[in-house]
């Protein structure tokens, strides 16, 4: 189960729409061990591609260091598919290397509606999970 503030859900969809037709990507950080995604961080897609995404390596280091300093971890890693469904591809599965993260996929293939789904990907196995939107309960975050 992914419990996600509604405002962050909406912001992820807005990000995906804004970057369409390229894939959008980013992280929602939260306190380490809490499983609470609280802080949205949009990332540059260094590939700038409609079918591939990769975090810029320098941006990724800065974010991972900042999370470490703040005792946070990447609770959600999200990206969008721009012409296919919001389901992890073989590439997504092979490259998923954060075993504690929820992998969120958004599809902007349909201009009139956006698919938003969440998965755990561990050891090459994908399992979809329900997404529950919650009102912001924590301190105001960026």
């Amino acid at each position: 189960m992914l419990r996600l503030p509604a405002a962050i859900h909406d912001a992820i969809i807005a990000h995906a729409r804004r970057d369409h037709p390229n894939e959008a990507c980013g992280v929602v950080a939260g306190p380490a061990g809490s499983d609470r995604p609280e802080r949205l961080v949009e990332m540059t897609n260094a590939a700038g591609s409609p079918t591939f995404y990769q975090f810029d390596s320098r941006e990724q280091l800065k974010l991972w260091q900042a999370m470490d300093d703040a005792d946070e971890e990447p609770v959600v890693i999200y990206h969008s598919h721009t012409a296919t469904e919001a389901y992890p591809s073989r590439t997504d599965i092979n490259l998923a290397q954060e075993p504690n993260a929820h992998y969120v996929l958004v599809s902007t293939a349909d201009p009139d509606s956006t698919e938003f789904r969440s998965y755990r990907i561990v050891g090459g196995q994908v399992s979809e999970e329900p997404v529950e939107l919650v009102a912001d309960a924590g301190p105001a975050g960026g």
Partner: protein
Amino acid sequence: MAVEVKIPTILRTYTDGAKSVPGEGENLAALLDDLDSRHAGLKGRLVTEDGALHRFVNVYVNDEDVRFTGSLETKLSDGDAVTILPAVAGGADAAQ
């Protein structure tokens, strides 16, 4: 050259859960051999059979991505900070 190496979550199975381990080497290639001698199998997760760094592993020395500093030839100095992060990447291009 004695350095400190930060290990990402997914590779901590090789270090008994340690987030950071010491290592030695004149350059990154030597460091990875040194790490592998105490954490068997770790090098194989970072270097391909052709002897190059895996495309989707980021290694940084003092916050510089080693792709820009000579990759496995990157020289190390005492006290350098080495960080390993799996690249976050993916996409729809594979057949589903």
